[in-house]
């Protein structure tokens, strides 16, 4: 079995699959990272991704434009995040409970709407999906070329976001403000900077990214929508942010690690190894639990993460 796995072509295909699988996780994780850095725990990522996947598919199906689908998914994620922000930042409802409610909403609404829109048909119609866009020159590179530079536009976007968000958080005036909101919102308030607008912006950015991440699943690769298509990825995103110690580069590493496991299990299934596939499917999640258990306690977490800001 190991021999089979170690063939160069197989390795390359595992690597390329890792990058593809990482895309939706990375998009949503970078968004969640920014939201959590501003002090808000958005537990509704799963619901936002799922709705993004569904609305993205529906909009692309109806309009015939994949990019319109992505846009609609971003809008959906952003709108759900706005609802979340009104509940948690303005009305100070418990963040975790609100996030759970949004997940239920996402699951229920996407299922209901799916049946309403495609009544009678057991399956959703297949639509075209994004194709790979090789980057001229770079994609010709031996070995890494096809892995890194023959991917979809959203994948490039996801990986580009890592340095961009890093620069934003740690090198700009606004990034400092976002981090301050998560560490000690009062320190912002007494400087005359409103805490709520900062957190609204961060949470809505997170929702948009979750929506786009969801769209990548439907219009980006599967070319269709199936109920509960996110399948726990939104939860994995939350774990990735924790395992990535709330920093962009470690978040990228954590995303790639989980994606590699997923890619491996797909490959192993493909080879037809005599292992129950359920065990293989479990791998990323088992590793996630282990990663949580061994990581340094609360290391790197924003100090007031999950605590609504009240002026005295």
């Amino acid at each position, binding site marked *: 079995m190991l021999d089979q796995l170690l063939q160069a072509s197989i390795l390359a295909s595992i690597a390329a699959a890792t990058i593809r699988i990482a895309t939706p996780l990375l998009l949503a994780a970078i968004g969640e990272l920014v939201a959590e850095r501003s002090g808000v725990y958005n537990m509704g990522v799963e619901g936002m991704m799922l709705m993004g996947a569904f609305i993205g598919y529906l909009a692309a199906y109806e309009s015939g434009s994949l990019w319109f689908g992505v846009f609609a998914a971003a809008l959906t994620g952003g709108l759900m995040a706005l609802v979340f922000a009104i509940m948690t930042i303005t009305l100070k409802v418990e963040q975790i409970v609100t996030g759970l409610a949004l997940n239920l909403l996402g699951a229920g609404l996407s299922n209901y709407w799916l049946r309403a829109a495609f009544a009678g048909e057991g399956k959703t119609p297949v639509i075209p999906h994004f194709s790979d866009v090789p980057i001229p020159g770079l994609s010709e590179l031996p070995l890494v070329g096809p892995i890194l530079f023959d991917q979809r536009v959203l994948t490039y976007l996801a990986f580009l976001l890592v340095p961009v968000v890093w620069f934003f958080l740690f090198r700009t005036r*606004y990034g*400092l403000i976002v981090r301050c909101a998560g*560490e000690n919102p009062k*320190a912002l308030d007494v*400087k*005359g*900077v409103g805490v709520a607008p900062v957190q609204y912006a961060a949470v809505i950015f997170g929702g948009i990214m979750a929506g786009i991440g969801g769209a990548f699943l439907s219009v980006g690769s599967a070319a269709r929508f199936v109920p509960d298509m996110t399948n726990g990825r939104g939860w994995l995103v939350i774990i990735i942010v924790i395992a990535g110690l709330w920093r962009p580069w470690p978040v990228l590493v954590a995303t790639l690690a989980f994606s590699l496991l997923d890619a491996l299990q797909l490959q192993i299934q493909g080879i037809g190894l005599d292992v129950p596939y359920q065990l293989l499917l479990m791998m990323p999640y088992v590793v996630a639990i282990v990663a949580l258990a061994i990581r340094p306690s609360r290391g790197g977490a924003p100090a007031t993460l999950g605590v609504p800001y009240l002026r005295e």
Partner: protein
Amino acid sequence: MDTTTPARLSVRHLTKSFGQMVANQDISLDILAGELHCLLGENGAGKSTLSSCLYGLYQPDEGEIRIDGAPVDLNSPGDAIRAGIGMVHQHFVLVPTFTVLENIAVGTGSGLSLDRRSALRRIAVICEEYDIPLAPDRLAGDLSVGEQQWVEIVKALYTGARLLILDEPTAVLTPDESRKLFAVIRRLIDDGISVMLISHKMTEVMQSDRVSVLRKGRLVATVKTAEVTRDKLTAMMIGGQPPSAARAQRDTVGSGQVLSVRDLTLSRDGRPALGEVSFDLAAGEILGIAGVSGNGQDDIFECLAGLTTPDSGSIAIEGKALLHASPAEMAGRGVGYVPSDRFRDGLVSDLTIAENLTLGQQWSSRWRKGPLLDRTALDTNAETAIADYAIAAPGPSARCGKLSGGNAQKVILAREFAKARRILLCNQPTRGLDVGAVGFVHRELQRKRDEGCAILLASEELDDLFQLADRIMVMFRGRVMATLDTQAATYEQVGHLMAGQEKQAAAA
């Protein structure tokens, strides 16, 4: 002070209520340019409400605020900053994981990029002008409390403050640090900046140009400091004669060691918290612990109360070693414990006075009728405590969260004094209390001592220790710097030891 100097800040008929409670009523005062103006009052007199109104954190219900003669609407701290008002909050608002520079610069400037170089330059100019020692690249979390205070002051000056409000800035400083603070304040005043100092420490108040005294939300008067005495100000503040502060003389320190602590060592999160702390405590004796908060006082108390197990060392009560005792065992040995944070560790805010008074003993047959709580016994006990300790509360079923700091402390005292048959551990029992409540705590501690109880008393207020303690043990970074006989010790000597300066103290 020349009365023709234009007022930097004028407050006229300011009123602010929270529901039924009027926190500020019809307050009018002026703060002149280049003046050190003190706002004096007991806790709950309305000082913090007034300063919050001036900083735009609260909006007054009525009244007018003028800056340099022009009326201003202070709807947010941003408005206050634009009006040239800066504030140093009593509890510092810093981000420990940010550098000093980031703490000062966050939320200021314009554009996308964070211009570190120009921020650095401006900080250097401010520090040089007012002789403030500050290292911009250090993490705020690594700074001492005194250094954090400098960051807060520079933060306010960085936004161009011409009126600086300092809310009880010296509550957490060593005497040395507070002297340095006043030197900086004088430089600010020389430069034409107005400083409003909120305080209830007389030594500080007496250094101001003018004092405005608040009592129960009203302005009693604004007076020139040179024209009044401390006693006069105290009388204005509490509306009567101050309780006697004289140290009760007594000749007998009880005999017999009750508590013996040897080489107590503890580390927390890999950092040393206590290093070889040893002391003895006799029946009828009060041993004071002096030190800036966070120098190991809490750790000693937690070890003695059975909340933390020390890494090594020994604790013996009347000769019996008790190193790994649980809080219940300690209480069973007659140890009462008054923790420093009364609402976090001392009480359950949502429980009633009657319930809080029995916390930790709810299994005792005294409070039970079979498996149920004996409400009658609880209420009778609470009524007695309310009467004995003069707790201002509607009755046994009042929730402790609604009580003022002083009354909440009395509930804890009532419970712990009843437990403390042999030893009473008191950590910061007067923290945040007003003059009247402090006097009450002092009298109760003396009474308990006269009953033969051994008392360990930690306080950041040296007045407490000098008035009550027989000996004063000074802590610095988890170690005992020295143990002094109170009669022979001076404030200065204790102050130096608190700052970790052994040599000057020995010479003093």
